[in-house]
């Protein structure tokens, strides 16, 4: 339903769409340029000038050959997958248990869970670094995964809680009345009902983990280096066009994923 603005606001009618388009141009311009220049046939991998030298796929070939780059891409995807699985289990479990039972101090617990979502990332990073140091856990895949899960699973929990707020309690009652054990009822009735929220929370977790830089910075080691860390450290010596190529593939993957989700949703 369109709500017209108050009369006498014809200027706003023109201004608002024009402003929104201008902002969208601002948002997309750097990304489009990044994609376009990943095909630029400049003689040097580190040439960032805007001059166009013709089309090439060189940087995509060079990207495959760059072992450090490929290692970091693999790490990023492995870590994001692990983080997503653990976050879904923890987040869905926490949301369901807190919905189903009354725990003492549940309010305080809720705040504590949501805290990592909003606390400055650098504080999470350095404090986790001190913890791992104190308990003698060497930095590596495990420390990065733990750090990511800590700020990612609240997002799954929040999404699942939002959907649980609208659940019909007779759904579970019916299952229990028909003789299902509470665990069976949870997996065959509740989980399917929560699936849209779980998928949404999981996708958000995956994208958050792939992009995470600040917390990772204080918890990774050379072997578990992720793509954002590599980009940051390479930028000090000068950016390479192979990074444009990798980013283009990530952007393409994201757009395909988003469009697929949208298609799935509109079918329902």
């Amino acid at each position, binding site marked *: *339903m369109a*709500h017209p*603005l*108050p009369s*006498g606001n014809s200027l706003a009618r023109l*201004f608002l*769409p024009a*402003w*929104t388009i201008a*902002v*969208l141009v601002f*948002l*997309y311009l*750097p*990304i489009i*340029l*990044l994609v376009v220049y990943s095909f630029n046939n400049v003689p040097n991998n580190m040439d*960032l*000038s*805007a*001059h166009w030298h013709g089309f090439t796929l060189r940087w995509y070939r060079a990207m495959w050959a760059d072992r450090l780059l490929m290692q970091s891409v693999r790490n990023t995807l492995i870590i994001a997958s692990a983080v997503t699985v653990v976050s879904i289990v*923890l987040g869905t*479990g926490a949301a369901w*248990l807190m919905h189903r*039972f009354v725990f003492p101090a549940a309010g305080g*617990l809720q705040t*504590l869970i949501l805290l*990592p979502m*909003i606390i*400055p*990332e*650098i*504080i999470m*990073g*350095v*404090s*986790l*670094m*001190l*913890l791992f140091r104190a308990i003698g856990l060497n930095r590596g895949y495990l420390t990065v995964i733990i*750090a990511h*899960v*800590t700020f990612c699973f609240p997002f799954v929990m929040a999404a699942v809680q*939002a959907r649980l707020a609208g659940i019909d*309690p007779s759904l579970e*009652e019916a299952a229990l009345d028909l003789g299902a054990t509470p665990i069976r009822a949870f997996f065959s009735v509740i989980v399917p009902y929560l699936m849209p929220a779980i998928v949404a929370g999981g996708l958000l977790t995956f994208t958050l983990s*792939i*992009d995470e*830089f*600040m917390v990772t910075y204080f918890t990774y080691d050379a072997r578990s280096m992720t793509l954002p860390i590599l*980009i*940051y450290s390479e*930028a000090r010596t000068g*950016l390479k066009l192979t*990074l444009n190529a990798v*980013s283009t593939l*990530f*952007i393409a993957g994201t757009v395909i994923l*988003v469009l697929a989700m*949208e298609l799935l949703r509109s079918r329902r």
Partner: protein
Amino acid sequence: MPQAVAIQPALNVRRPGWRGWGLFAPMVAWLALFVVAPTAILLVYSFFTGEGIGEVDTHFTLENYRRIFKPVYLDLFWRSIVYAGATTILCAMIGYPVAWYIGRAPASRRGKLLMLVMIPFMTSFLIRTYAWFTILHEHGLLNGFLESAHLIPTVFSHPLNILYTPTAVMIALVYTYLPFMILPIYTSVEKLDPSLIEAAADLGAGPTRSFFRVILPLTWPGAAAGILMVFVPAIAMFAVTKIMSGGHIRLIGDEIQEQFEGGGDLPFGSALGMALLILFLVTYWISAGRSAKVLRGT
């Protein structure tokens, strides 16, 4: 549905048995180990003494906190607040009309418009920051455009040197955080009852008056959430400022990062972290009252 509400307590309000607790325990343990314990360790470390090369002396001292009040570090905090504040204000001014336009668009188009805003932010923020190099570079697109439009010899005497200046930092910060402002404001705008705006107009309020007296107060929860979601991460950012200023502009995040790298002073870094945490809590306390509802709603 009053019946549903009446049924709910029977199943819902239930004390957890040993099984409930057993399932819940790992969650509590995770929080205790990875949220509470690290913060406690940060606090404890901030009272230790740094011995250089990452070593610490565990004798209690207040020296680290005293050191924060030296002009060098107060400047760092102040500069961080200024940059984060300017980013927040610019994001609000740029983002509010967009959020308003999307929130008032026909419902069928809202989702698509919102997705258009979100897609760029699903790519790495570091990549997006570097993408600005192609534009702001001395031989970049902006100067190329200005030259081809003959604006460079006429309006500007020589090519613009924006990269590695505060302007470049501001552009990148606003670019990084804009969607975090647009989303929560949109949530508030979408819920706004249009008849209230009409009523204000009917009662003779002009557009400016109805904006400040009706629209802004009603969408304030969203704006407050946006302020929180932009100001808090912006104040502690180190990567974007370092990249766009070429390392010339140092904020509090840069100082903390350096103290926690090999050879840094961990206790002093911890004290800076605690100070930042207190700053965060104050910001949160000021803006959270109104924004809490929106944050919980998203």
